[in-house]
């Protein structure tokens, strides 16, 4: 597959992944701050969780697979900008894992509060994706 096609699908997958993570971020903050749950919110948890499992997670996997394919084809694994970008991508993936587990816990009705750092996850995601975009487009080093 040509580089431009790979890039187009990679960017599409990243948008799906990051969009889903932002939805989860705001939803987790909302549910955590509005206990006990209002009527109908349990259904909302199921909807957000289903979106995370059926859209956000596959988008993350697709973005990783396509990104790795592009990096191998272009020989970027020796570039420092890619190493920094990979650290940020691993951080985002780990954050998504915590979000996904938290949604599962909420769906089970568990009482334990989610980790406190999830309150700031939306800002962290936006800052990370801004840095990733600069690294991937400008390739400063």
């Amino acid at each position, binding site marked *: 597959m040509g580089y431009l096609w790979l890039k187009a699908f990679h960017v599409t997958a990243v948008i799906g992944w990051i969009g889903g993570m932002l939805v989860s971020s705001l939803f987790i903050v909302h549910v955590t701050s509005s206990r006990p749950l209002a009527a109908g919110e349990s259904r909302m948890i199921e909807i957000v969780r289903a979106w995370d499992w059926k859209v956000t997670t596959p988008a993350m*996997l697709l973005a*990783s*697979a396509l990104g*790795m*394919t592009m990096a*191998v084809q272009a020989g970027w694994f020796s570039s420092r900008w890619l190493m920094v970008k990979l650290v940020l991508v*691993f951080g985002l*993936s*780990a954050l*998504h*894992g*915590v*979000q*996904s*587990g*938290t*949604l*599962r*816990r909420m769906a*089970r009705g568990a009482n*334990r509060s989610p*980790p406190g750092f999830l309150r700031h996850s939306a800002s962290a995601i936006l800052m990370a994706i801004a840095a990733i975009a600069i690294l991937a487009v400008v390739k400063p080093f």
Partner: protein
Amino acid sequence: MALLFVAVPLKHIAGHPAATSIIGPIHGMAFLLYVWMLIQTVSGADWSRAEIARALIVAFIPFGAFANERFLKRKELALAGSVSPERKWDTSG
């Protein structure tokens, strides 16, 4: 195992690096997926730090997955409610 027993000998003994260039990234993706699933699982359930460390450390040891098989099966059964969730993994075998 395909990487260790087929692709790596093909590269270093037979001089054919093509197999490692295919199976290597697949192995990398599978490892990253395992770590992601571990983070997702421990965030959604009550795993002790010892259990998390075991699941992570064994992943770095060759064939360590086989050592974790029974432990993970027990966690799966506990999650399904077949055994008490309080039951911890044992070290008897």
